[in-house]
């Protein structure tokens, strides 16, 4: 079953000269974890906005085609009614704090309060969201005291509290340190196991390779590549659109040129694939260590 359907979507921001998205068609299945990659300004953010209704409900530009979230045409919805179905997480953790709640618990409750959810249900939803993102012990902390990674998880919990089945994240790790990045990806894996549909824009190829089911590469507002992680992340087209292979792929590619990587194997995109490939080639490893 498809929970996100985009049909020949073209969108231009009011003040821009050229469209940010050009003729995008795309369907995403329930439970899928899809990564959007692309150089800066390739349209990743705009696509995230389109999937969550921010385009065209907040950014009103030239919009044609259609975006359906669980069968609902986004143009006919409001941002808040869509928030029950799709949660949007932005790049900068700090900008997503409501700014009027003094504890982590109340920050998560903010969206629920706006929907008029009764107190007992708030307690339950927030407690669940807190444990889902691993912040159960931080409920009474001030959101400002958290680390970047924790703040970003708080932002995720805040949109999850409205229990959407789909989560859209726009480069959630850009402003995080390595530990924060790791915590976000572990959380995404966890959410995927819980059956959430996840779409996330990201630059960090090596992490995407580990976690995504499918990868979509954008350039100039168009979909250039779409397919399994191996198909997309080992494609030579990647370098032409301002991206690059992961180090594992590069190593194996160099090795392949010297017949040090088995021809029968596709190029690796993760650590374990690289290890498997290099071990297969030299089973009688003579190198001592």
């Amino acid at each position, binding site marked *: 079953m498809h929970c996100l359907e985009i049909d020949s979507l073209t969108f231009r921001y009011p003040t821009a000269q050229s469209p940010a998205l050009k003729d995008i068609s795309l369907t995403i299945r329930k439970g899928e974890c899809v990564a959007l990659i692309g150089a800066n300004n390739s349209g990743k953010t705009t696509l995230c906005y389109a999937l969550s209704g921010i385009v065209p409900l907040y950014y009103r530009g030239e919009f044609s085609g259609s975006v359906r979230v669980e069968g609902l045409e986004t143009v006919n919805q409001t*941002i808040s009614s869509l928030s029950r179905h799709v949660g949007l997480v932005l790049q900068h953790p700090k900008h997503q704090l409501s700014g*009027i709640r003094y504890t982590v618990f109340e920050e998560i*409750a903010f969206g629920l309060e706006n929907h008029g959810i009764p107190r007992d249900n708030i307690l339950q939803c927030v407690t669940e969201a807190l444990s889902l993102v691993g912040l159960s012990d931080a409920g009474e902390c001030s959101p400002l005291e958290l680390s970047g990674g924790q703040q970003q998880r708080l932002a995720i919990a805040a949109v999850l509290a409205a229990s959407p089945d789909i989560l859209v994240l726009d480069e959630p790790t850009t402003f995080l340190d390595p530990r924060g990045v790791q915590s976000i990806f572990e959380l995404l894996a966890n959410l995927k196991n819980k059956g959430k549909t996840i779409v996330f824009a990201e630059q960090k190829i090596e992490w995407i390779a580990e976690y995504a089911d499918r990868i979509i590469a954008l350039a100039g507002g168009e979909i250039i590549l779409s397919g399994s992680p191996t198909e997309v992340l080992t494609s030579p087209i990647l370098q032409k659109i301002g991206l690059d292979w992961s180090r594992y792929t590069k190593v194996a590619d160099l090795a392949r040129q010297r017949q040090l990587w088995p021809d029968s194997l596709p190029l690796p995109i993760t650590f374990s694939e690289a290890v498997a490939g290099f071990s297969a080639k030299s089973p009688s490893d003579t190198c001592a260590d």
Partner: protein
Amino acid sequence: MPETHSTLFIPGDSRYHRLHPFNKLAYILLTGVTVYLGPGKSLAAACLIILNAGFAVEAAIFIPLWRVLWRTLLPLALYMGIIHGFFNPANHTVLISLGNMSVYQEGIQFTFTVVLQLSAVLSASLLFAFCTHPADLITAVSQAGWPPALAYLLGSPLLLLPAMRERARTIQAAQRARGLETHGRLSQRFRAVFPLITPLILGAIVEIEQRAIALEVRSFNIPGKKTSWRKVTDSVVQGFFRWGMVTVIIMIVTYRFIN
């Protein structure tokens, strides 16, 4: 450790702390109206000051309140005493003569009255600021059914402030690292204003969209009944007092207009 408190609030569990924020606000208004418009200016002000001191002792904030109060009022009182004591146009009863200058009784009396009035209003305001957690004020505003925008506008600046102050410091460092002179001659300092405040303002304005989107996806602006996790205690008695104070305020204002 990031700075998280930017207000005068001192946590506590006194009766004054637990009062509904609107009652404390109404009390400030009542104080102001009484001392400036009511009959018996100085006497009323003196009574209210004593009352406020009692409240402050009860709320265990007397010393911090006293500290802010005298630091604010002492310079005012000195300036006022000197200026009015010497130059108030109504002066004619000489109190002390200093060569060809004289200190007059009318000016000193005037100063005394104004300082009393200010002390009364200031202490009532400080009681509010010291004993009200901003979150309670925000909650009270939303529970009263006022627009969510108002609660947001009252609350969010307080939480945005620490981060913005930090940014201001970083901007100063970044621009000085680019050779900007911030301590030189007056003209240099004037020229430094633009490179210092432009990044602060433009950077903050560029964030607005993201913050607005983050609020919208959490249904900030939707019509309809909202709930509140945080509770602000209210009671019939408090409600009675609140409206009582409002009535007295209206009475004093009308009295003033009639006379």
